[in-house]
């Protein structure tokens, strides 16, 4: 079977004339019906969004995002004044007054989100941090910095070594060797093989050379958002749904709001308190 891959047509972000392959990310808002009211347009909409897999609708995605943001918030921004009290250490230092930078830092009301935005803006302006990249070249350029775009490559990588299904043909970026043979690595905590012995033995488990390791060690840190794990591969089972009321399997979907419940007992509780139809 011939191997087909997409080649980047453009070097930078500028769009080139002509046409190109773009990754199919599933949902294309330009194709979605504006107001899916009829059953047919709803079905079409669901297919576009990927509803066949039991994926969440846009509204449910929004709800999930809200829930995650709420869970991730430790409600610590409730304003609590720091009681002003001269500590002994401060008294000892006496007349010494703060530098302007320190005073600025202490007065700052910024939260982490602000710093994250600043960082992103900075990275957009100068894609690589110059101070880190001067001396050492990056070991392996990553296809894309966004977790979503990484989904494909990581998914393939995991599958090829994780499942018992036949491995796909060699990937362009990371060539996979033949199925790994039983082997014995040196004791995990013992000294790694010297580079001379690995040079003679080009097995897939050869330890990287010292130069490769050095390059790996001096790679610049990823940005905060780039270090987030990539989304799970599409082959993963669809998300499990639970009863809103008691936490058992959500076997029944509410016709009005799309929430889940497990049976008649919880249906009543759901309709009374949880149903979002009119809210």
């Amino acid at each position, binding site marked *: 079977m011939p191997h087909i891959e997409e080649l980047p047509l453009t070097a930078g972000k500028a769009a080139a004339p002509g046409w190109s392959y773009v990754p199919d990310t599933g949902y294309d808002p330009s194709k979605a019906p504006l107001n899916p009211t009829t059953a047919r347009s709803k079905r079409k909409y669901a297919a576009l969004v990927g509803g066949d897999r039991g994926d969440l609708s846009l509204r449910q995605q929004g709800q999930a995002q809200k829930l*995650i943001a709420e*869970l991730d918030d430790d*409600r*610590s921004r*409730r304003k*609590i004044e*720091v009681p002003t009290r001269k500590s*002994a*250490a401060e008294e000892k*230092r006496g007349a*010494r*007054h*703060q*530098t*302007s*930078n*320190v005073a600025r830092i*202490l007065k*700052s009301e910024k*939260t982490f989100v602000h*710093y*994250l935005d600043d*960082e992103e803006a*900075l990275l957009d302006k100068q894609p690589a941090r110059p*101070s*880190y990249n001067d*001396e050492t070249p990056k070991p392996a350029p990553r296809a894309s910095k966004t977790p979503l775009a990484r989904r494909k490559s*990581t998914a393939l*990588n*995991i599958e090829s070594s994780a499942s018992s299904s036949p491995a796909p043909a060699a990937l362009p970026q990371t060539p996979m060797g033949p199925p790994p043979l*039983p082997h014995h*690595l040196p004791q*995990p*905590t013992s000294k*790694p093989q010297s580079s001379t012995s690995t040079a003679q033995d080009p097995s897939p*488990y*050869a*330890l990287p050379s010292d130069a490769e*390791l050095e390059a*790996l*060690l*001096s790679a610049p*840190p990823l*940005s905060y958002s780039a*270090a*987030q794990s990539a*989304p*799970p*591969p599409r082959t*993963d089972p669809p*998300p*499990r749904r639970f009863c809103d*009321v*008691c*936490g*058992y*399997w959500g076997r029944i979907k509410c016709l009005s709001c799309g929430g889940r419940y*497990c049976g*008649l*007992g919880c249906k009543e509780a759901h309709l009374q308190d949880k149903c979002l139809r009119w809210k």
Partner: protein
Amino acid sequence: MAKPKNVPASTLSTGDLASRTLILDNGAHTIKAGYSSHLDNHAPNHQDCTIIPNCIARSTRDKRTYIGPELTTCLDYGELAYRRPVEKGYVVNWEGEKAIWERSFSSEEGGLGCEPAETNLILTEQPNAPVTLQRWTDEMVFEEFGFGAYYRTIGASLNAWAPSPFPSTADSVSGLPVECLLVVDAGYSHTTITPLYHGRPLHSAIRRLDVGGKVLTNRLKDCISRTFDVHREDHIVSEIKEDVCYVSPSPSAFAADLERTWKGGRYDARELDTTVVVDYVLPDYEHIKRGYHRPHDAKIKGGRVLRVDEETGRREHVVTVGNERFTVPELLFTPSDIGMSQPGLCGVILQSIHSLPEGLRQVFLANIIVVGGSGLLPGFVERLDAELRGAVDEDLVVRVARAEDPLKNSWLGGARMAQDEGNLRQRLVTRAEWMEHGEGWVRRRFAGKIGR
């Protein structure tokens, strides 16, 4: 950077190191702090480490504000409001953090008795920190607190110096890092995966799962609040999590437990399995200082009661905890349960490992260590081990171990590292150097770009 104008002359000259080193593992939930010295032969152990709550708490009941270590003297944790200066593992609000540090360094009760100018500081940070925050941290440490010498490092990397939890390996020497280690840091804000090679992080393979102890506590809060509103009781819910939550050994065991804790349909009601369902007696901070759990009493219906204990004749609040015991920690392994588009912990570890050269993958798979508070959940290590084994080829060796004390392991590693003077000299930046070279140079030193 503004050059300071009037700072006290440092008591140390350029080549001098202070006799003792303060290792400060500055977590979002607690600070792990303690001293180590390269001059005496005392091997640091877990008792040398103090755990300090990293928060300013305000009680609505006694109208007091507790700063950092003072919280241990608090008698009533009900409806405490917290202010946490560390967000996502990074110090964001220095006004609050300064108050906590000053209280912690003082020689009052619960303090460390620290004189910054005569102390070396080893401070931990989370990986992938925004540069601005790193710069501000350096600035505060030298300009405001005036430490004699300072080293800022990724907290996970210190684990390489801690004693290895794997039984087969010989005891590591105090001053030497473990060769290869994959640190799973299940902390308060998130869970990070950091591969270490000779104690140095492989930055391109660091990955983060945005589920941490905070998400679990908040989720448990939401679940319990279906029957009894505990949204304001952060401390109590966190204690419930620590006391009764566990990780299911496998997805099938999860399903089985879910069946056992189901109340049944309307017409086929079932008996709850009292080995899983428990009653949790909430503390009232009068007679019951800390909540405790006991097997479920079938007379309690509807999840919560206020009732009178037969033996003591006291009133007590009881909350029934059923499937929350295992569905909440399950979020670490199946974040899609709350609609999060990230793989479970096992998937994140594989993502990290697959971004490494193939020759290194086996070594890291065989040396996975779990640290951080969520690592204390029963069944965590076993589940991770089972899932990883199922996801990689059969001939690969997978070893997962929990550190002896997951909370203090990074600290212990740092303390052991600081015992060796060579290690210290290689890493620390003295105050004189800071004033001579400025913040950019210091930051590059900590990133390992400028050697000694």
